[in-house]
């Protein structure tokens, strides 16, 4: 064997493992001696930004995480909330940005696989996938290839495992030219008394490895350094993992079958840093030690070293602590599903992770300090300087308002995403009752009257201009979208994508966004129950727009009350809820029509948001409303056009814009607004309740006819709207 675990640990080697001098000193202190190579690798991945959250932890701690309905907040594989009847919804969002840029199909596919495992490892059956995507400018030579591969990868994985992909979001902006964002979210359904956690317990209990074999996938950090220790280093280390959704599907079914028994003590997926982080989390979480015999680890390739086995990121693997003596019973389940099953070790009372390979101890690390004494940084930050606000009167009106509306809905930023979602199986499991295209996706809680509403949102251009307002707005938009289908928003997960945290201005963006999120979550009683941080999204010193993607989840007690954005009948009254001031700062109108990102984002009035939202929800709940749509990107006219297109029915709009220029009134992005479509005979009651609740509501038009008509002088036929809306992405993607 040419591999040498006792190789001299040089300064250079430490550096190649990404550990600072201070971090290495901590490592020496914890061990009381020089680490072996395997140990160095373990410290290096456990203390990486990705696993340790060393730059973000102090700030994440400020987020509200509790509510009466929160069963498990951050700290577990995913967040868990109570939806009544002993049922729970388990959900989380995670990034797979860098791998997706290198290899879009596999990067995105394995991102979906990873987030599924975080959810089903807790005992949930995954019921919905979401995806939040950010690409560079459409003109950038790589964008088409990346979009094409990412979407195929998300579909390729989700479709095969049989979990519907029901929604998401897609942005284009040059700040993502060199760093696309691929954030995948999964939502699962569990029984409250069958939720599984990762803390190991029971000295002597067997530790089981199940799933795919371990290969040399994605071994980071010390690529070059450790290559010296293998005989033929050539082609030994593919940097991209290939997903195997077939195995994942079997793993889901096998794990759920095992979970239906009483054999499991603890279970944890092997995510980033594979066997290392899963075992350290399980052991330290339970205050116990693990002793592994690495010879027992199922291996895909010959001659794998302990270092490689511990750092491999091979997909579709899980670690399970079983009750004693249940191995044979458990193995029978995994045999049925044709999955590897290996007892690789036992729980000890040492508190150490002790690894043996070919009869020799190759690592022996106390897990508690490894997990708890991880570095934590208060990185210096400068808050983003306030921008000058923009008076709508200083924004030129379009020469032709009709053309402007068509240009907007036909732009990359607002056009239909049907090219994307048609590649996703949106209906498998037969419980999808609101598909992509509306405000929130809605999936029934199988076999009940209830339904889960899900929305992912973030407006990065707002976050860039003003991180605090942007952070607030991202949270609020998911809340509004969930409200707009009639559901009660319950909690969020987040995926915080930022540039290099070692730059104070980037850290300032991070701190600002967290501050805004915190305020919104508190005001709306809408806590953060899980999340993920992705830093260093940066090329040549240029960071991405700050992108705190939020995934919100809500519940509809009676799914038959759900509404969509499509008015159901002609001659319904269209009502606008909320105040319109014509805020054009950092709006899409400004960006698309003027090529500018000037100004400040629309301020979010959290009390007003709550009041307006609660009002809208109460009216939907009382079955007073035929359709509802919140007003966001592109403003009022875009929202109205979207409703008309969804219904394939015309409408006649009259806007009372007063002294606000019509283009500002029509395209301004003031927050806290909804459009309701209501039957004539219900309009009075609805307006009365609004008065009682102190909500501003005004009539702006009526449905019917074959044209979208504005102020009697602008007429666009519905087919024209639909074609314009659909064309951009379909044309863009069909040019080879």
């Amino acid at each position, binding site marked *: 064997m040419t591999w040498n675990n006792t190789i001299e640990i040089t300064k250079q080697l430490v550096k190649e493992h990404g550990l600072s001098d201070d971090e290495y000193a901590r490592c020496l202190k914890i061990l009381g001696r020089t680490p072996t190579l395997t140990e160095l690798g373990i410290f290096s991945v456990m203390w990486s930004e990705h696993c340790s959250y060393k730059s973000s932890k102090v700030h994440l701690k400020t987020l509200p995480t509790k509510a009466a309905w929160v069963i498990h907040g951050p700290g577990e594989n995913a967040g868990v909330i109570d939806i009544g009847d002993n049922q729970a919804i388990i959900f989380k969002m995670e990034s797979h940005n860098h791998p997706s840029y290198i290899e879009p199909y596999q990067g995105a596919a394995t991102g979906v696989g990873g987030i599924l495992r975080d959810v089903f490892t807790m005992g949930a059956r995954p019921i919905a996938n979401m995806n939040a995507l950010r690409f560079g400018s459409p003109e950038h030579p790589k964008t088409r290839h990346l979009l094409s591969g990412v979407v*195929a990868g998300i*579909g*390729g994985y989700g*479709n*095969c*495992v*049989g979990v519907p992909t029901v929604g998401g979001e897609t942005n284009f902006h040059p700040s993502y030219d060199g760093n696309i964002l691929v954030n995948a979210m999964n939502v699962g359904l569990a029984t409250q008394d069958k939720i599984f956690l990762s803390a190991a317990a029971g000295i002597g209990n067997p530790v089981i490895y199940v799933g795919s074999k371990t290969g040399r996938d994605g071994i980071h950090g010390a690529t070059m350094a450790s290559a010296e220790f293998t005989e033929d280093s050539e082609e030994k280390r593919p940097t991209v993992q290939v997903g*195997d*959704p*077939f*195995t994942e*599907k*079997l793993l889901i079914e096998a794990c759920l079958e095992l979970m239906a028994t009483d054999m499991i003590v603890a279970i944890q997926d092997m995510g980033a840093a594979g066997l290392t982080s899963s075992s350290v989390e399980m052991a330290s979480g339970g205050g116990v030690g693990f002793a592994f015999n690495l010879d027992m680890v199922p291996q895909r390739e010959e001659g794998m070293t302990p270092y490689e086995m511990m750092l491999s990121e091979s997909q579709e693997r899980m670690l399970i602590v079983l009750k004693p003596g249940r191995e044979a019973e458990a193995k029978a389940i995994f045999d*049925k*599903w*044709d999955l590897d099953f290996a007892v690789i070790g036992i729980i000890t009372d040492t508190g150490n992770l002790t690894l043996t390979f070919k009869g020799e101890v190759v690592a022996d690390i106390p897990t508690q300090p490894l997990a708890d004494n991880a570095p934590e940084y208060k990185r210096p930050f400068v808050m983003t300087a306030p921008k000058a606000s923009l008076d709508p009167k200083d924004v030129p009106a379009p020469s032709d308002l009709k053309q402007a509306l068509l240009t907007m809905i036909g732009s990359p930023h607002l056009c239909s995403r049907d090219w994307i*979602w*048609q*590649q*996703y*199986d*949106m*209906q*498998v*499991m*037969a419980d*999808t*009752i609101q598909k992509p295209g509306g405000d929130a996706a809605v999936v*029934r809680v199988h076999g009940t009257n209830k339904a889960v509403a899900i929305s992912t949102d973030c407006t990065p251009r707002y976050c860039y201009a003003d991180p605090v307002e942007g952070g607030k707005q991202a949270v609020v938009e998911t809340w509004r979208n969930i409200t707009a289908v009639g559901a009660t928003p319950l909690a969020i997960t987040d995926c915080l994508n930022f540039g290099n945290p070692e730059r104070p201005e980037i850290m300032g963006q991070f701190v600002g966004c967290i501050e805004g999120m915190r305020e919104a979550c508190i005001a709306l009683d809408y806590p953060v129950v899980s999340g993920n941080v992705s830093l260093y999204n940066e090329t040549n010193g240029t960071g991405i727009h700050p992108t705190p993607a939020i995934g919100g989840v809500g519940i509809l007690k009676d*799914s*038959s009350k759900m509404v969509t954005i499509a008015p159901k009948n002609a001659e319904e009254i269209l009502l606008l809820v909320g105040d319109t001031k014509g805020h054009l700062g950092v709006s899409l109108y400004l960006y698309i029509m003027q090529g500018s990102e000037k100004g400040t984002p629309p301020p979010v009035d959290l009390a007003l948001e709550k009041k307006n939202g609660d009002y809208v929800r109460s009216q939907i709940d009382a079955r007073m409303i035929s359709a509802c749509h919140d007003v966001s990107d592109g403003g009022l006219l875009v929202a109205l056009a979207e409703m008309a297109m969804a219904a394939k029915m015309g409408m006649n709009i009259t806007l009372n814009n007063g002294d606000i220029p019509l283009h500002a009134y029509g395209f301004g992005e003031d927050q806290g607004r909804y459009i309701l479509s209501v039957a004539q005979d219900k309009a009075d009651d609805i307006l009365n309740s609004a008065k009682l609740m102190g909500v501003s509501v005004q009539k702006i038009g009526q449905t019917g006819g074959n044209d979208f008509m504005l102020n009697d002088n602008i007429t666009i036929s519905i087919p024209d709207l639909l074609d314009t809306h659909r064309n951009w992405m379909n044309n863009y993607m069909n040019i080879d």
Partner: protein
Amino acid sequence: MKTAVIIFPASNCDRDMIIALEKITGHKPHIIWHQNTNIPEVDLIALPGGFSFGDYLRCGAMAARSPVTKKVIEHADRGGKVIGICNGFQILTETGLLPGALMRNESLKFICKDVNLRVENNDTPFTNAYKKDQIITIPIAHHDGNYFADEDTLAALEEEGRVAFRYVDDKGQPTKDANPNGSRNNIAGIISRRKNILGMMPHPERLIEDAQGGTDGLGFFKSIINAIN
């Protein structure tokens, strides 16, 4: 009416099919894991959609060689009824129970959307509850639904009235634009010569309640009940 649903590794529309059959027949189908070769006496065997064996090698290829499939073939040979939806259709062509093959969609992309189907022949156990030439809307969700058969086979299918469903536009015309995947003659579903086996790419089991967006799939299951009772 007694039914059975076969589950292969990575079948994923099995639950949808089980629910549809239970809803319509009033009885829970027998659920048969692919390694189990004891299929009880049933009137109908359903091969559900999904990605059996990951769709690796060729869609349906490995499932078609699975031990349970031999029993399905025996059931069909005795004149028993068999339906294959989506991946089930791919399995049926791989076994040879139905002619032709399902190739990669012309666009090379997975396609999930509602399509219009024209009922070509309502004199079959799977279509009798529809009117001839009725246009129904049913969702598709597949990567390999591009039906191929050689000219002689196609001619025979057409002549013998064995095309059950065809992709059509809103006006009921089998145009190129209405063809989502490149299938020969816009074929969406076919039946066997003895009319006891049907394979189709679209998913009627996904459209049997208003909450799912429509009920055009119900007729398919009602037809089977009519035929068996």
